[in-house]
């Protein structure tokens, strides 16, 4: 995985250059937003369970997915769905701290769509749940940190679709 600093260095090291002013501004902005990121991470880790519960209630509960014949029917599948959402939330939080989405590719997205398709997990429902998680998280951590988290939730969604 990379963080914003490593990914900047890697980009410019292969060209044997100093980071340009654009990259420097991004780094400065990243360091300035550190307090926000650390606080958001703390709030999310303390409320992870309830974020998932609320997101599922908003997006999946009482839909075809939880009804008999749906992909969350029976508690075994329900539990698997919740476990995956927990992964998404935790890795999105890591990525937000790092300011870089590479860990999402490495740990979550590589091969996920294929896995879901072969297991019959509906992609549309998954994306709905991730988007609901984005809303619930933004309510919890506030608009600024919520926007930053949103970048990585959206990254997961675009990686799935």
């Amino acid at each position, binding site marked *: *995985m*990379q*963080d914003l*600093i*490593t990914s*900047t*260095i890697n980009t410019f*090291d292969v060209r*044997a*250059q*100093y980071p340009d002013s654009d990259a*420097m501004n991004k*780094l*400065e902005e*990243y*360091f*300035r*937003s*550190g*307090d926000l*990121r*650390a606080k958001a*991470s*703390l709030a*999310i*880790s303390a409320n*992870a369970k309830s974020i998932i519960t609320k997101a599922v209630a908003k997006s999946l509960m009482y839909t075809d997915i939880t009804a008999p014949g749906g992909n969350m029917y029976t508690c075994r599948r329900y539990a698997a769905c919740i476990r995956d959402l927990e992964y998404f939330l*935790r890795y999105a*939080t*890591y990525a937000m*701290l*790092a300011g870089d989405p590479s*860990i999402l590719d490495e*740990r979550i997205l590589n091969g996920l769509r294929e896995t879901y398709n072969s297991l019959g997990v509906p992609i549309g429902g998954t994306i709905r749940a991730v988007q609901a998680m984005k809303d619930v998280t933004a309510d919890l951590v506030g608009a600024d940190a919520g926007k930053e988290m949103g970048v990585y939730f959206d990254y997961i969604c675009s990686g799935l679709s």
Partner: protein
Amino acid sequence: MSIITRSIKSADRQARYLNHGELQAIESFYKSGEDRLRLAQILVANEAEIVNKGSQRFWQRYPNTPSNTGNPTFRASCMRDQSWYLRLITYAIALEDTEPIDRSGIKGVKEMYESLEIPLKNLAECMRCLKEVTVEMLSLEDAAAIAPYFDHIIQGFGR
């Protein structure tokens, strides 16, 4: 590897969120970040002067080195390499870790310079000169923050 990546990796191995202590350490890394960038930018702004002065001092001490034989290519390569090491140091400052130096400047350095027939001893002295002129132009505090990275390079050449 920055403390951010290191903490995330260790939390990930245990499938947990970062704990309070880790987040505190990361927060102080963020906080000192702007100051580290400022320091790196001082090096960037003074690169030409540092390399010039460093080279002069080096050639005074080691007059019989390939870059001082009057061959313009050797001379230019020597100064270019000094700039490169200076750049790696700015990376390391931003990251607060020597990884970029190790990866791009230490690994294989012995084999490369030996095959180019440049004695590593000379290179180490060259870096010592670079360190001296850099430290001379900085405040005491900035100098103390930068010096360890030069020492790391010099030690790396000795290995």
